[in-house]
């Protein structure tokens, strides 16, 4: 909360040149003896911290203070389709319980839909304190205005301090709408969450295209809203007995009006989803030709797993976009992941680093992938993988018994 003041009387061409070089966004200009900052400024304040003393000053402005004590509890949005709860919901409940325990908060669920009471009962086996349900015909399909209105009603009544929403198709559409309605902060695709004693949520996510992590807080607004992708957090174990209670909420149905009409819903043919795989072999740019992708296919096949690729592989058209791991693709949390010739941009690693065992093979000992790998194999995939496949076949007693593997056409 603040702005930058330029003390022009301290500026000369030498100082201006220093500042221009310092600004990582190229936003400082010097013209006719006048130093200026343009709209490209990101308020990183490097010019204040590292620049010539006192030339550019950061002036703190008093931010309106929110009464943090008026808000309590961590709420989880129950992501579902026709009452079938998306597993990301349970993962978020697990994280909400960790956070809530640190500040002695209750854990809430907010469940919006139609004929959802039975599904809501299942949530009571995961240690939540209260499940607030809004059960209306208008909420049968996900439509933005009625869903936002019901969520708004929940926030006004319950005043949760933090809200966790799955970064699913629905969550990514709903969360920003809620955040704007309450003029509060939203941090997308958090990979780590923690909480301060004063109830500020510590939100960590990859930033600036993915090679840097940013720690983000929402210090002067409530509720704080974060989205988290599926397979990032860990779901709690189902308890033997239910606990907590279901609160059925009622609201003015006039607020559930919508300009959106759902005319038809068509089920898609079942698609294999790499997020569900326990063993994944991932191909990266170390694979030289499309034909060589067969190495990855065959390794995945003999291990009984699935194969996937990085963004460049998708862009090259070597692999289907649904098989892409990373921030702009899918997040996976398999038991075993083997990466072949992948350099390891954060854009990619953010989508797979919570795997139980990560084996990375790369020729370059400095490859970034080795900083997330549990086993860093410095070597050539073209030497290692064929022999590895042979070894696995030997161990499995398969050698000589299976025909040479070739990728079925559906894999491309």
């Amino acid at each position, binding site marked *: 909360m*603040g*702005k930058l003041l330029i003390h022009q009387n301290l500026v000369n061409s030498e100082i201006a040149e220093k500042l221009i070089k310092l600004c*990582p966004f190229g936003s400082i200009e010097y013209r006719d003896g006048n130093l200026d*900052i*343009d*709209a490209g*400024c990101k308020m990183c304040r*490097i010019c204040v911290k590292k620049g010539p003393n006192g030339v550019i000053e950061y002036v703190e*402005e008093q931010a309106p203070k929110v009464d943090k004590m008026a808000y309590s509890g961590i709420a989880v949005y129950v992501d579902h*389709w026709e009452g079938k709860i998306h597993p990301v919901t349970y993962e978020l409940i697990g994280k909400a319980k960790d956070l809530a325990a640190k500040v002695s908060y209750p854990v809430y669920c907010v469940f919006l839909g139609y004929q959802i009471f039975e599904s809501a009962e299942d949530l009571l086996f995961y240690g939540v304190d209260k499940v607030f349900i809004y059960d209306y015909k208008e909420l049968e399909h996900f*439509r*933005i205005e009625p869903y936002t209105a019901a969520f708004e009603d929940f926030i006004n009544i319950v005043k949760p301090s933090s809200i966790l929403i799955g970064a699913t*198709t*629905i969550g*990514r*559409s709903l969360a*920003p*709408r809620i*955040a*704007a309605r309450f*003029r509060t902060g*939203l*941090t997308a*695709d958090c990979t780590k969450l923690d909480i301060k004693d004063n109830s500020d949520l510590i*939100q960590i996510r990859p930033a*600036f*295209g*993915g*090679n*840097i*992590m*940013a*720690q*983000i*807080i929402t210090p*002067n607004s409530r509720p704080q809203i974060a989205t988290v992708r599926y397979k990032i957090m860990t779901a709690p174990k189902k308890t033997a007995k239910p606990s907590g209670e279901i609160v059925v909420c009622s609201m003015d149905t006039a607020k559930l009006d919508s*300009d959106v*009409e*759902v*005319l038809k819903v*068509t089920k898609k043919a079942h698609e294999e989803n790499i997020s569900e795989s326990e063993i994944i072999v991932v191909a990266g740019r170390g694979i030289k030709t499309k034909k060589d992708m067969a190495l990855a296919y065959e390794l995945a096949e003999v291990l009984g797993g699935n194969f996937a690729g990085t963004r460049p592989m998708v862009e090259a058209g070597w692999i289907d976009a649904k098989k892409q791991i990373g921030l*702009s693709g899918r997040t996976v949390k398999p038991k075993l992941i083997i990466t072949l010739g992948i350099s390891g941009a*954060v854009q990619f*690693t953010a989508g797979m*680093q919570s795997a139980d*065992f*990560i084996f990375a093979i790369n020729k370059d000992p400095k490859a970034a992938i*080795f900083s997330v790998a*549990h*086993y860093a*194999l*410095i*070597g050539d995939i073209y*030497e*290692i993988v*064929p*022999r590895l496949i042979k*070894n*696995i076949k030997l*161990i499995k007693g398969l050698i000589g018994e299976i025909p040479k593997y070739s990728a079925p056409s559906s894999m491309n």
Partner: protein
Amino acid sequence: MEIIVCIKQVPGTSKVQVDPVTGVLMRDGIDTKMNPYDLYALETAVRLREKHGGHVKVISMGPKQALDVIREAFMLGADEGLLVSDRKFAGADVLATSYALSQGIRKMGEFDMLLTGKQTTDGDTAQVGPEIAEYLEIPHISNVLKIIEVTNKSVTVEMDMPDTIELVKVTYPCLLSVEKDIFAPRLPSFKKKTETKDREIRIIGLNDMEDKDEKRYGLSGSPTQVERIFPPDDNVDKETWEGSGEELADRLSDKLKELKFI
């Protein structure tokens, strides 16, 4: 059909590094381009205009360099452009960015459809579209796969959901976030480049907005704060294996067997 498309100038490369000692961002040059996802939104708008008439206007926010993406949009068929640019908007997070854009859109006249791409390649958050829709009090549909029918009151689209495809009708004005591949974007036209090189682009700042309250824009209007930036964590329990291809392959298959993956 009056259509507004939101476009953004993004870094041409994702190779941004942070100095681990000083925490300072290191950017190589200032290579920029139009956010690739926006090309699909713009193409959708131009095709709708070609079929139904009307105008395609583009809006962007950023420094004066962002005029380049508006010129590029002209080469791709846009009729008018507006740049929201003011140092007072610096340091804006999603909320303050969406607010400034929504205020800018209010200066562009009535519209039927507001189109955005799926997300940007530098933020990857896909949040700005829905927040703009909220500020403009209009409905939005994300993940639009196809435009099925356009009437003078509403548009019917196919929306991509995880397990289903929904056919959805929404009345104007509305915001649609379109998926990649809704239409194949055309190439920039040299003829249009020549035709539009002198076309004026309006630039507006805080003083042109309906809401001139400085506290709602830029860093001051941003509820989120970046406390620190840092390089990603290293995995501390790491084993590094070196050796010939054969040795590594044998060691790996032994380890996978030990871990019961084989």
